């Protein structure tokens, strides 16, 4: 059977189409392994330098020595969740940005892949990539601190990360729209989205220390609930019962943000096609 005949007589399987994007990202990752090492080291240094603030706080008497491990864990969770979240957002915003740099955007977007499948392929890679990188940073960070992890509920933490990842993917797809709409400034704008999430979500502090008007913004950031849930189950040893509401909230965020971001992406793509913005840049 010729390739033409094969192509005409079968409907391409959606999983295989989505796999194309996963495989491509994996191939790019292999070529940029040195950058991956750099990001890993950067993540580790960032994690250590923020978490050592707890040692300083104890040494200077700002917190008691008894409270130090809790502060250490609080900051460690913040840095790791932030590393995870920013890696997902970065990978997703590369959906358009990288293709613009390489000039492949037109070839990819004219291919017969449904956009949902395209974005799901990118999301699966982004989430797994972020998870592996964050796990390595965690593994390398742990020997630097004396942490009591016996009562931590790791299963609940994993469930919260999995459920929360859907909403992060939604945010990532929304961030990917910016480079499509604004070829020259979209990249910087997507970093601004990350910066806002960092500010209002309580990454290194509780959201109740924020001014009231910023606390309002924290309610609409899924990262707020992701961080709160992970701190509850790892720091306060909370179980599924007490976290059910929070997990439900994260699930609702995912159920709303993912379809909303896909619809927004569709509108943005149409607008880009109307104004001629699907072109190479850089």
């Amino acid at each position, binding site marked *: 059977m*010729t*390739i*033409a005949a*094969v*192509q005409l007589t*079968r*409907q*391409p*399987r959606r999983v*295989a*189409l989505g*796999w*194309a*994007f996963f*495989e*491509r990202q994996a*191939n*790019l990752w292999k*070529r*940029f392994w040195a950058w991956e090492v750099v990001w890993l080291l950067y993540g580790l240094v960032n994690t250590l330098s923020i978490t050592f603030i707890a040692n300083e706080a104890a040494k200077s008497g700002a917190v008691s020595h008894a409270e130090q491990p809790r502060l250490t864990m609080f900051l460690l969770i913040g840095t790791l969740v932030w590393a995870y979240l920013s890696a997902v957002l970065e990978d997703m915003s590369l959906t358009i940005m*990288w293709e613009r740099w*390489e*000039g*492949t955007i*037109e*070839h*990819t*977007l*004219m*291919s*017969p*892949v*449904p956009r949902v499948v395209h974005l799901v392929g990118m999301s699966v890679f982004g989430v797994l990539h972020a998870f592996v990188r964050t796990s390595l940073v965690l593994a390398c960070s742990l020997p630097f601190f004396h942490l009591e992890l016996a009562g931590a509920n790791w299963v609940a933490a994993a469930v919260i990360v999995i459920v929360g990842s859907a909403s992060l993917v939604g945010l990532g797809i929304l961030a990917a729209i910016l480079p499509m709409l604004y070829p020259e400034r979209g990249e910087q704008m997507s970093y601004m989205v990350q910066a806002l999430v960092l500010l209002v979500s309580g990454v290194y502090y509780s959201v109740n220390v924020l001014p009231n008007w910023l606390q309002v913004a924290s309610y609409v950031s899924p990262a707020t609930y992701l961080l709160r849930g992970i701190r509850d189950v790892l720091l306060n040893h909370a179980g599924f019962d007490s976290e059910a509401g929070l997990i439900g909230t994260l699930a609702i965020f995912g159920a709303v943000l993912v379809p909303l971001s896909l619809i927004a992406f569709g509108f943005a793509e*149409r607008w880009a*096609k*109307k*104004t*001629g913005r*699907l072109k*190479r840049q850089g």
Partner: protein
Amino acid sequence: MNTAGERQPLPLEVEELTKAFKVKAPRRSRGGWRRQRRARAALAGVSFNVHPGEIYGVLGANGSGKSTLVRILSTLLLPDEGSVRVFGYDAVKEAASVRPLLNRVSVDPSFFKPMSAMENLQFFGRVYGLSGPEVRRASVAILERLGLDGEHAREPMLHLSRGQQQKVAVARAFLSAPRLLLLDEPTTGLDPRSKREVQSFVAEARRDRGVTILLTTHDMSEAEQLCDRVGFLSAGKLVAEGTPVELRKMVAAGRPLDEVGMEDVFIELTGRSIEEDEEEEAG
């Protein structure tokens, strides 16, 4: 899908295609904080048909609207007015049905440069629904035919010359076995040998696979050598159309046809030289 009468839909039917881009007007004063925008026509009522198995050439200077036309046909740009039908499917309303039927080679061989040719082809083959082994088999066959060996195919694309990269771009376009192929200045910037190899592959593909081709170029000899019919695009308008011989006859004015070059025909019919380097088109 257009099923009017018994007529088989043509590979490409373009009717009254119009597209304008809004561009910022030059800043003349310090008065306003916002620059005004004005519309610049890239295509103005372009109509033509391409028949099965035909190579149709669109000739025009830079900025004449060639790339805008190819982008609209590729479903990457929405026209303001007019319609495009690919094998009967509307390229705007039925883009999902159009996309599997066509592929494209652009002037710039755009790839993920850190990846090898095979890895790139693997990706671009998979997004057209081909399996890994199918892509590998077809890629090797096409690249060998184009004179690119397996060793080059495994190197990162950034180590390949411009000509080699363009051959991989041709392979990418043929990988999906398109029924309509859009070649947007595929040989621009290639050395004479690579140019000849790509041209002969295109001619062979039309002969052996019956693929219909739309070729945009500003290379007159390429158009004459490859195209069955040619349309002259100037300032977004299709000002003349016909076989190379028909076009020569239009301007011969009694001179023997072999004394009338396509360059003369172009100047006569469009009022400008093909080399005229106009402002880069917005689309």
